[in-house]
């Protein structure tokens, strides 16, 4: 069985490694860590397979596993911050003393960050400028050289994407 895992993981690796590393690096917003996220994704795949769970679409599964690994990586990195960086920055994250609620909150924020990074650049940029930088649709449209209705579409699309995949993650 181990041989089979080696073989099909090897095939996945040969065909998609570069692509999935680039994807993972984008998701965590940090070029240095893509490789490590993807390895964690491979190990998830191997574990699943070792548990006898059939994986029908290995490529799709690999990318989903990479996304989940990116979420956990992001959430975990945040916990590290609480130990090492000034806490003031994270007061918003520590909404409660209940570890489960805090965990869920952090996991949700990490997923949101990952999902936004997954968006096409134009769409993400519009959302970031509007939501995070507090600019109006008109200002964003002007800065990006697109129409106001296009900005509206981008921002809505970003939210719908996040909503869909947040729901999906909750269901799993």
């Amino acid at each position, binding site marked *: *069985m*181990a041989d089979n*895992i080696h073989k099909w*993981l090897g095939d996945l*690796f*040969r065909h998609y490694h570069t692509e999935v590393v680039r994807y993972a690096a*984008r998701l965590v*917003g*940090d070029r*240095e*860590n893509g490789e*490590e*996220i993807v*390895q*964690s994704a491979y*190990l998830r795949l*191997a*574990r699943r397979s*070792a548990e006898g769970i059939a994986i029908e679409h290995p490529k799709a599964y690999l990318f989903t596993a990479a996304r989940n*690994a990116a979420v*956990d*990586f*992001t*959430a*975990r*990195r945040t*916990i*590290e*911050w609480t*130990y*090492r*960086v000034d806490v003031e*920055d*994270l007061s918003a*994250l520590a909404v409660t003393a209940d570890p*489960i609620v805090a*965990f*869920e909150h*952090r*996991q*949700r924020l*990490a997923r*949101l*960050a990952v999902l*936004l*990074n997954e968006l096409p650049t134009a769409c993400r940029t519009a959302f*970031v400028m509007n*939501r*995070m*930088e507090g600019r*109006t*649709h*008109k200002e964003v449209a002007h800065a990006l050289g697109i129409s106001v209705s296009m900005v*509206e579409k981008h*921002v*809505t699309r970003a*939210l*719908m994407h996040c*909503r869909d995949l947040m729901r999906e993650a*909750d269901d799993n």
Partner: protein
Amino acid sequence: MRPTTTDKIPYCCIAGLRRNAVYINDSTTERLKRELRMSPKPPYPSKVLSNEALEWIVRLNSGAAHKRDRTAFAAWRAQSPEHEAAAAEAEGLWHDAENLHVDPQSGLVRLGGRKKPRASRRTVLRGLAGVGIGCAGAYWASGVLRPMMADHSTGVGQVGAFNLPDGTRVLLNAMSALDIDYSPQRRRVALLEGQAYFEVMRDIARPFEVAARGATVTALGTAFDIDSRLASGRVSVFVAENAVRVQSTFERASDSVTLSAGHRVLISETGRIGAAVAQDAAAALAWRTGMLVAEGETLEDVIAALRTYYNGWIVIQDSSVRMLKVNAVLDLRTPQESLDALAAGLPIRVLRLSNLVAVISAA
């Protein structure tokens, strides 16, 4: 019976990982996720209503919204509990983004509220880069790829020594698993994975049988070695003392050979028994002292042996190098150095993508 060794392996025990990382291990994450799943969640509002709610949120935050828009939204969400749930979900998403910021260098979204970048943070992050993988690698070290229900099993780089109920001595090589099935009539064990050396206690009334992939090996009183890690599902049997009977699981009972001391035989995945070849016992059993002696072995078989000592994953990328003949003496306890030694002596290149992945290709 539960495996005796896997549970005891400390979670993050991989040498060579980046220093000083504090590990929040995946088992904590998984436990919390399980607990979360236990709490029931109300059904989501329909996509149609949810989309409308999101459009409201976008409009209200466009910078061009009037007071009457807010009033209209309040009226919209008051229509039904489902409207209210859709509005709350949309507001929640919008609100959560408050706790994110954009990394000015990459333009990508990161966790944590907006604040001025500080030099200290980058330095801190650098030291933390290994966190994710530390936990991932631990899965490997804990040997999840082996059958978890085996009676005896070993992890990466571990060798296990123990006695069976009848006093038969077993030495289990790294990443191996053995199941015991003794009855008053016969002593049966199954080598589920890996390699094992047996010094069988003599008992004529109860034959000692080992099943491994396509082969069954029967002994009365003898010492022999079985290796089931070879490429393409082959099994190797080497006899150190006396003789054993090697039988194919796939063919008729009469199709068996008797193998005498100092000889080795290979059984293919389909149970075909090859010709017996004389081999030096010191070489065949060198793994018991942590060495691998390859005399004309193929590279893929040598790598298969090395893998069980390697905390990570070795991939042979070019099939052209798989069948390269290897003559080498390698130290199994230092697999990284052994890989380097192979690269120095063969027309291959070893590319390390990280501590966990090594890729072998043609030079």
